[in-house]
């Protein structure tokens, strides 16, 4: 079990109802953590449409999470 912080933006922020939280999780990767949170909070976006960032850098969804990481799940972008 480790604790990471998760920050939410846009549709995920609205569906979660907050911008940031500390999560204690048994999962080891951003992909697995997203599935856990998706089930808990009924996020509509499937995991394959969400990218992940850890400590303000894009990461592979199967990267290894570490205690204290700051994780962000990135919905499909729409800048410009």
């Amino acid at each position: 079990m480790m604790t990471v912080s998760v920050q939410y933006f846009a549709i995920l922020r609205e569906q979660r109802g907050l911008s940031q939280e500390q999560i204690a999780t048994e999962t080891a990767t951003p992909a697995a953590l997203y599935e856990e949170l998706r089930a808990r909070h009924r996020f509509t976006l499937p995991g394959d449409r969400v990218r992940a960032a850890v400590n303000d850098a894009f990461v592979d969804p199967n990267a290894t999470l570490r205690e204290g990481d700051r994780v962000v799940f990135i919905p499909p972008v729409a800048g410009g």
Partner: protein
Amino acid sequence: MNFSLSSSPIDAAALQRGLADERAGACATFEGWVRNRNEGQPVRSLEYEAYAPLAQSEGERILAEARAKFSLLGAACVHRVGHLQLGEMAVWVGVTAEHRGAAFDACRYIIDEAKARLPIWKKEHYATGATAWINCATRGEHAAPTAIPPA
């Protein structure tokens, strides 16, 4: 070479003056404006939300790529965040070069990459009162309203 996010209106003239360079023969700019329709739906306003630290580093990376790929003298990009009204500028890109080919190609490269890669999201507010996060529709609808606010 610089990228920034702005929560206040973009001053394109000032940004372009910042690119002034007596070696430059060409300056190409692109502005993205909030328009009044998207895929047939009347739009009233837009909200842009950014994951700022990663948008900043990714924006700088895009400008550095443009500098490496094209023969440039200067390049800059500013993206708005916050609530924008119709006609407001959402993004500005400006590029200077000795010759126009590089200026056009780099300007287009920067806006194309910015749209595809910056962690920035857009919520459209429709004339009906509904809203939608663009590109985040599920259940098969495209850009369909995902929420109608309580009356």
